[in-house]
């Protein structure tokens, strides 16, 4: 590994003046994302898919990023991996991985880290695996880019991992093509491919959306077990609060490319303070209760990322908008850190807690 050319961008020396709304430099954090912005210039205008996201994540911990479709979750994860092409996307901010800044690093350096130290499980394993190569060949390839080993050794490793993720008869199935696998098996194979290099950071982008409920639970268990075994940091991306409820230590709620609420999973489930999070909780199907008919979807549609609503981007859909003369339409609420978590809303903290305790919690 080349370390010398990185010494000039040591996080401790270069990040002293910290602009933007975010926590101070946190040298201990394994993954430290600071004020990440990813904008796409298009014919219709500038798409601000991610607009100032910050978070940290430690090894062995799981951060859940939650939000509706189009809130910028996938764009964020691809941004961390450096997978946005420079011609299409304007990326700014900082992504520190184990003390190394990636946004300003050379593409070649980021490529070396990709798949090796940070790996990704994609949303739809049918389209995310190459239809013309066998599952084994695709895993072998992922291993051999980063390890100088013979094909036979890599193949043994592929069979090994397929077995570990629960694929029966891995020595046989390794030569199958993706279309010969069932959806759940494909997702397992995808996980095997992501884990083949023992990555320190595993990003799972909606790893279970394409699967039925029982298989979903199995896959989530698998990810949890593997995380315990490998001790990796996991970024779990989903629009399903149920998924993060089971897995995440911390949760970040995204709306329109920004963070509206963040905190520990306990806090966010017990004392959520943002009206959007309340909406997400209200629209969450719960297996333990018969709430099917009490499912309350958030009214309205996700915002346009080209012309984000002024002030608080959630205001056109928010039932508390403008209440007591708060400036929802004109001022962007900053992500204020309370005692136990951060919330971006103009309603006063005490009032938010009161509304939740009196109006929201009983209905959930």
């Amino acid at each position: 590994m080349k370390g010398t050319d990185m010494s000039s961008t040591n996080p401790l020396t270069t990040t002293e003046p910290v602009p933007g709304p975010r926590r101070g430099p946190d040298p201990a954090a394994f993954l430290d994302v600071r004020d990440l912005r990813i904008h796409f210039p298009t014919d219709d205008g500038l798409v601000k898919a991610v607009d100032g996201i910050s978070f940290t994540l430690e090894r062995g911990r799981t951060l859940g990023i939650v939000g509706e479709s189009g809130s910028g979750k996938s764009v964020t994860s691809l941004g961390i991996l450096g997978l946005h092409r420079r011609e299409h996307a304007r990326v700014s901010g900082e992504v520190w991985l184990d003390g190394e800044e990636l946004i300003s690093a050379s593409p070649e350096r980021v490529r070396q880290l990709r798949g090796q130290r940070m790996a990704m499980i994609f949303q739809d394993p049918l389209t995310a695996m190459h239809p013309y190569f066998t599952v084994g060949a695709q895993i072998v390839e992922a291993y051999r880019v980063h390890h100088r080993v013979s094909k036979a050794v890599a193949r043994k490793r592929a069979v090994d991992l397929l077995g570990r993720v629960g694929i029966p008869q891995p020595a046989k199935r390794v030569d199958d093509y993706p279309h010969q696998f069932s959806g759940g098996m494909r997702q397992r194979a995808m996980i095997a491919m992501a884990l083949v290099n023992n990555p320190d950071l595993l990003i799972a982008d909606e790893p279970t959306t394409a699967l039925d409920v029982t298989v979903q639970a199995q896959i989530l268990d698998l990810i949890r077990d593997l995380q315990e075994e490998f001790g990796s940091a996991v970024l779990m991306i989903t629009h399903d609060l149920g998924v993060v409820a089971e897995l995440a230590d911390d949760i970040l709620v995204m709306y329109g490319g920004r963070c509206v609420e963040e905190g520990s999973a306990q806090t966010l489930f017990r004392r959520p303070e943002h009206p959007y999070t309340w909406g997400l909780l209200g629209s969450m199907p719960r297996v333990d209760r018969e709430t099917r008919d009490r499912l309350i979807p958030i009214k309205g549609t996700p915002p346009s990322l080209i012309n984000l609503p002024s002030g608080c981007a959630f205001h056109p859909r928010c039932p508390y908008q403008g209440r007591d003369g708060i400036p929802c339409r004109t001022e962007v609420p900053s992500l204020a850190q309370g005692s136990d978590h951060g919330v971006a809303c103009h309603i006063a903290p005490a009032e938010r807690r009161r509304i939740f305790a009196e109006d929201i919690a009983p209905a959930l």
Partner: protein
Amino acid sequence: MAPADGRPMDVTNYILRRVLTSAVLMIIISMVTFGVFFMVPKLAGTNPAELYVGKQATPADVAATARKLGLDQPVTVQYARFAKGLVAGRDFDDGPNKTHCDAPCFGYSFRNDRPVWPLLLDRLPVTISLAIGAAIIWLIGGVLAGVISALRRGGALDRTVMVLALAGVSLPIYFTGLLAQLVFVHTLHWLPGGEYVNFADDPAGWAGKLFLGWVTLALLYAATYARLTRAQMLETVGEDYIRTARAKGLRERTVIAKHAMRSVLTPIVTIFGLDIGSLLGGAILTESVFGLPGIGRLSIDAVNTKDLPVVLGVTLFGALFIVLANFIVDLLYAVIDPRVRLG
């Protein structure tokens, strides 16, 4: 071959099915072709026997020939004899002399006084040389141009290639061919004129004589390939599995040359097979423009001299060529796209 469960069976099955389809197709095509050639003289109001005996013959001669050749028989009987000839050979008895035509008997040319099949075989090397050379040029040139164009989308190179491609498909062979010949052979003298020579006798002369034919013919197809490759590449690089390939940390070179190209080539192979089949048409024009003595020339000469058996033979041979090319493409396709084998 990876020893995966059930795979060899799939492949054998697949090949058997294709062989069968191709054989049935061939039989149907031979029937239709034969039917058409049986009908044409009838519709034109001529007795087919006239075409065999020449203009000076008396009506009695014509009738006698018709009887001896079985041209007065119903079409089914004639086809049966023709089909038997293809498989087992047959005898032609036109009165004074009896002629044997070995299998595969595509007919007998009384004008050339030879069976059609050896006539075709004589000309085949020229046509094959022309076709294969052109195919190599257009395949490599077209695909390369398309890939570069797609990767440099919107740039000057991309625009140049696409304009050339447009010119390539819209200009007829007669125009580009004659122009090229005028410039490179007659004005600049960079390439030899004169007769076609065999590869074995003079490889340089052979290539020199064929060169313009290759390029002219290739230009016609290369344009289509460049555009198809470009479109296919642009679509493929947007696929999820290309993103996965990058996420693994593969070098961009590998992502394009291995992962993207594998998908891009699949439709190219299909089109290539169809084009190889239809190449005979392009070859006919090209051969006549550049004075190459191939099958194209043979068929043009045969049409001019109303040598019906040769025309029928060339047509059937061309059809066989197309069916064969499709068969090979189907096999190739199964190798390239593993999903096809199960379908």
